[in-house]
């Protein structure tokens, strides 16, 4: 019988989650994916160690007082299935991103970048005045908005 939760197990959890967080901070989706997998495993270990350790929780095989807690094990099974599904979806997304863009980097928000740029140039948006028709709007002529909407690859 294992001794249940001990220092080694918690260090393992810490290392798994720590490495996972480091990978999450990367820009590339495939590294982020690995980070998610590591964190998921760390958290699953944490849940397992949350219950009492002991013998197999089957009535008739082991003594009731010495049984391990079956509930965290059931929860971990559910959590593993969920993490598995999410990992598969993330893989699909990063493949799709690579297929469309040639890389799987997560870029910044386009509109945020534009607003930062406008703020740096201290521009006042002409739309805010709302007096002139849109056809005379200098923003319409100078800086046509990037095509929004979808399906324009």
């Amino acid at each position, binding site marked *: 019988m294992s001794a249940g939760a001990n220092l080694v197990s918690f260090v393992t959890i810490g290392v798994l989650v720590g490495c996972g967080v480091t990978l999450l901070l990367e820009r590339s989706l495939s590294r982020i994916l690995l980070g998610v997998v590591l964190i998921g495993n760390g958290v699953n270990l944490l849940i397992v160690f949350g219950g009492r350790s002991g013998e197999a929780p089957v009535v008739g095989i082991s003594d009731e007082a010495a049984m391990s807690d079956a509930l965290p094990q059931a929860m971990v099974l559910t959590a593993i299935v969920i993490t598995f599904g999410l990992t598969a979806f993330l893989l699909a997304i990063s493949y799709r991103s690579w297929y469309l863009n040639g890389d799987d980097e997560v870029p910044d928000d386009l509109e945020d970048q534009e607003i930062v740029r406008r703020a740096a140039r201290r521009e006042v948006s002409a739309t805010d005045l*709302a007096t002139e028709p849109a056809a005379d709007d200098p923003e319409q002529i100078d800086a046509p908005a990037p095509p929004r909407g979808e399906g324009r690859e």
Partner: protein
Amino acid sequence: MSTLVPLPVVLPLVGAALTLLLGGRPQAQRAVSVGCLSASLVVATVLLVQAYRQGPLVAQIGGWPAPVGIVLVADQLAALMLVVSSAVILCVLLYSIGQGQAETGESTPVAIFHPTYLVLTAGVCNAFLAGDLFNLFVGFEMLLAASFVLITLNGTRLRIRTGSTYVMVNILASMIFLISVGLVYAATGTLNLAQLAARLDALPDGVRLSLQLILLVAFGIKAAVFPLSAWLPDSYPTAPAPVTAVFAGLLTKVGVYAIIRTQTLLFPGQQADELLLVAAGLTMLVGILGAVAQSDIKRLLSFTLVSHIGYMIFGVGLSTAAGLVGAIFYVVHHITIQTTLFLIAGLVEQRTGSTDLRRLGGLARMAPMVGVLFFVSAMNLAGIPPFSGFLGKLGLLRAGVAVGGPLPWTLVAVGTATSLLTLYVASRVWNIAFWRSPCESRPSTPPLPALMVGATVALVVVGVGLTVVAGPLFEYTGQAATDLIERTPYVRAVLPGGAS
């Protein structure tokens, strides 16, 4: 009666399976989806009436009694959320069917949309009904997995870019939630909410506070509370209009619901109140200032969504009955109105091909119906009397004044300022998109499908109707809030033999 409780989860799941089988037959798919969601709206209404008359309804899944088995609990708060979300989900489904007909199979792959949408519904309902922390987690995961598919629908470049942010942030939030589930179980040996209510009180203060804060972070990300809100305005606007609408209306509110539930039932002390109040104030201000800077209607609406989450957190942070009443009323109001506004943005997009304020103009003449709908909803959001937005904000501000003290008074001031700034943002959209003279002559677009407009009108009517039923609704939320604060009705319904 308690046999009805699982139906809001089961019906959409069965519907999802059926629509998946009927993948090649759009007509049958639509019929099944509409049928399932209408049925679950009826069930939710029955549950609401029953919960009001008899107190919380409890279903023991698999026949195992409460602390051992999984329980689904429909108390007044859960039943109210079920009714509102079922109504909103049904309207958005009709809207998307209308839009699908207009596009004639051009962009939305209907075969995926209907099953995923129904799974999302099941997840939302499961989260509302969950009687234990792990089932709440499962509900969240169901709705998240479905929302991942919906937000990256078609897998276009833009949606993959924004979708990956959304997916990452939400997976991280789920991991934090899972950590808190593991820690709560390790500390108390149970996950049943009613039993936790008793056992958490026995824990040392520090342990209880840290569990509370981890849960708050997890739910705060999902509810988009500042500073955990930056992901939302980035990811919502690119999805198809009905998807954005239902996300905006429901997903963040599921987070708010989870915060209300855990703060009242599990952590009734007032340790986190100041934190909640500060976060609420910052959410309101930062959100609405973000909205002021936007030039795209959908992004602008996403920022107002974040901003108004602050009002609900404000109500929770006051931790008085009046504050909770205001918060619950505001959740109901905001689910309806924010969904409506996104649907209207979808109508604008359908009519003009854009929601960019720099390209819009003259909509009031071009589409007067859309103009009227937008005007009514925007005024409702900003809180102009006699709309429900005004009543909700008034209730919250009065609750804040009743508590008194520097922080609540600051929040009252911030809430008023946010309301005025929302009015500014709304009138800015109105002036630019609807009122100014139109841009260059556009090719005449086909008229909007009747079903899209009809579904939007229905939601606007519901939003205005909240004013008409405000009296009974406040009475109902009052009773719900009293029960939440007392905690005994919930605990006694789940564990008739007493908690231990």
